[in-house]
């Protein structure tokens, strides 16, 4: 007796793909519609989980695209707090599809939100669309304005030079400016700004809205970069809080992740060269055994989980199996004016000051 299931591969069957596979070896990424070469420039954006992906891409010698790098006069330990290198440019977390779409529109001057700057009581200024981009905010309005121009130029360079964008869909819940629909990164009043119920409203995006926003984004991206490919992931990190008072945070999380997962699937069908990578499923697969890829707070993903995700990512997109990292890309020229120059200046300044002090002439 035949059935359509008879000819299906092993990964189609729970027993063979999950039950009998050691949890760290679960690989739900069956195939990819395109592959990544070591020289492909990879840009990342998205929610907190996308930071892990960006860090792992850098650590494993993918050609991680950074168009807004820290200046070499700074120390490596200083720049992360200023969000250099966390993503390809300093846009911070981009939680929703609408935010990503608006990031592109703002960078190209097609959309300028009315509520465009937050003046804080301490005299600093915050960017409503990346309020935590640097500790203490911007120290003057002019610094804020010039930095945003520079940032938008870096965003444009990223969009125009990427080969692949890895975007992690994080949330459906968002706070929106009533006046023009600008989506804030986080609710005004939580990390800057002042919440005003007359100006700020809650919105929970639906599947069709997410798909529409992503399609609009992809189409706009391909007008400036026709070769751009996308890899979509869904963040497994649960909501830290829901704004829906009548809904449990777990239920709200399930809704949000479900919408995003469905939207991602639909997008792979509606646009070419858009892949879905099952990072969400890899992390959640540990729910089926005694282990977990979540930290003690039951939200953040622990390093072995990220490593599992990236091992599968490398395997499906580069064809590299086992734990070997992908091959190194062509070396990226290091910016001139590095530590050797500073060391020389330190030495010369010491000699200069000693000479003046000890032999004033």
């Amino acid at each position: 007796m035949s059935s359509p299931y008879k000819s299906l591969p092993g990964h189609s069957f729970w027993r063979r793909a999950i039950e009998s596979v050691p949890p760290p070896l679960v690989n739900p990424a069956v195939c990819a519609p395109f592959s990544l070469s070591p020289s492909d420039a990879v840009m990342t954006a998205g929610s907190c989980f996308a930071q892990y992906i960006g860090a792992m891409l850098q650590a494993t010698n993918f050609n991680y695209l950074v168009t807004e790098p820290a200046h070499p006069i700074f120390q490596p330990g200083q720049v992360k707090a200023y969000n250099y290198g966390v993503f390809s440019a300093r846009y911070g977390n981009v939680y929703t599809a609408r935010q990503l779409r608006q990031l592109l529109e703002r960078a190209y001057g097609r959309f300028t939100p009315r509520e465009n700057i937050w003046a804080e009581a301490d005299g600093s200024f915050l960017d409503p669309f990346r309020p935590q981009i640097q500790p203490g905010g911007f120290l003057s309005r002019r610094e804020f304005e010039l930095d945003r121009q520079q940032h938008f130029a870096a965003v444009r360079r990223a969009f125009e030079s990427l080969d692949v964008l890895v975007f992690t869909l994080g949330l459906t819940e968002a706070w929106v400016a009533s006046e023009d629909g600008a989506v804030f990164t986080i609710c005004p009043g939580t990390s800057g700004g002042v919440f005003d119920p007359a100006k700020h409203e809650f919105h929970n995006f639906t599947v069709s809205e997410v798909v529409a926003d992503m399609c609009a984004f992809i189409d706009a991206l391909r007008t400036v970069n026709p070769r751009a490919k996308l890899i979509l992931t869904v963040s497994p990190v649960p909501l830290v809080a829901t704004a829906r008072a009548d809904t449990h945070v777990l239920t709200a999380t399930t809704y949000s992740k479900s919408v995003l997962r469905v939207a991602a699937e639909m997008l792979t069908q509606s646009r070419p060269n858009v892949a879905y990578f099952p990072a969400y499923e890899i992390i959640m697969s540990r729910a089926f055994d005694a282990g977990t890829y979540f930290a003690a707070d039951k939200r953040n993903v622990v390093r072995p989980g990220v490593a599992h995700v990236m091992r599968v990512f490398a395997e499906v997109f580069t064809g590299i199996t086992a734990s070997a990292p992908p091959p190194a890309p062509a070396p990226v020229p290091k910016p001139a004016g590095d530590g050797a120059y500073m060391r020389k200046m330190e030495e010369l300044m010491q000699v200069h000051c000693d000479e003046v002090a000890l032999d004033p002439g």
Partner: protein
Amino acid sequence: MTRIFVAGNSHITALVSSYKAAPPGVEMEFALLNEQQFQPVMQGDASDATLAERVRKARERRGLPRGEGGDASNPTLAFAARVLEAQADLHVSMVGGNDHSILVMLNHSRPFEVVLPEAPDLHVDPEAELLPAGLVSIELERRIAPHLKTLAEYRALVSGRLVHIESPPPVPSEAHIRKYPGVFRSMIEERGVSPALLRYKFWRLHSRLYREACARLGVEFLSVPEKMCDGAGMMIEAAWNPDPTHGNALYGGAVIAQLLREAA
């Protein structure tokens, strides 16, 4: 007789040069921390209650007269001895003062700019990379940290007034710096002198950190004498030392006059 004790690094030289022509009734003593006997500067613990006793005993043991140094084998004690023996009416710090120049004296291969928080309307080169002023301050703070430690130790050594003198403003003239490049000659030829306004902004950020540290430590901060600054806030030509960053005897004289007013 007004007794002033000044401890610091190379900017002290302007005062030393001027002191030769100081008015009567002023006695100044200088401890130049660039000297080997003080290196490394104040890495000990000046707040240690036994330090003065240790210094006294060390001096007695070595039979040193007052004011001629402490234990040469211990830089902390050497400095502490000079400070404790000084019996000054006013203690003065000129520690550090040139760390901003390391970052900004010459053109960088990746040109940068900054918006000065207290003067945001100053020109900003649109072609240069804008650096966050807060991050620049973090890097400057890292660089001046050893000097601030020395200042804190100095504060712990003296119970009376301690004044820190702001380092001189930049020399605005590239021609002057090229004429007197000192050890930077080849680097200047290779990179060129950075714009005066950029050097000015970094100097102001640097001074702000010292001013804040002084407030924390209970040290009075003495700004550059106004008459030593031109309309743009940079050093007047008559005060330039024949080198890229220091003030001359005229500059030192203006600072001494300011100190005398403070000590009065």
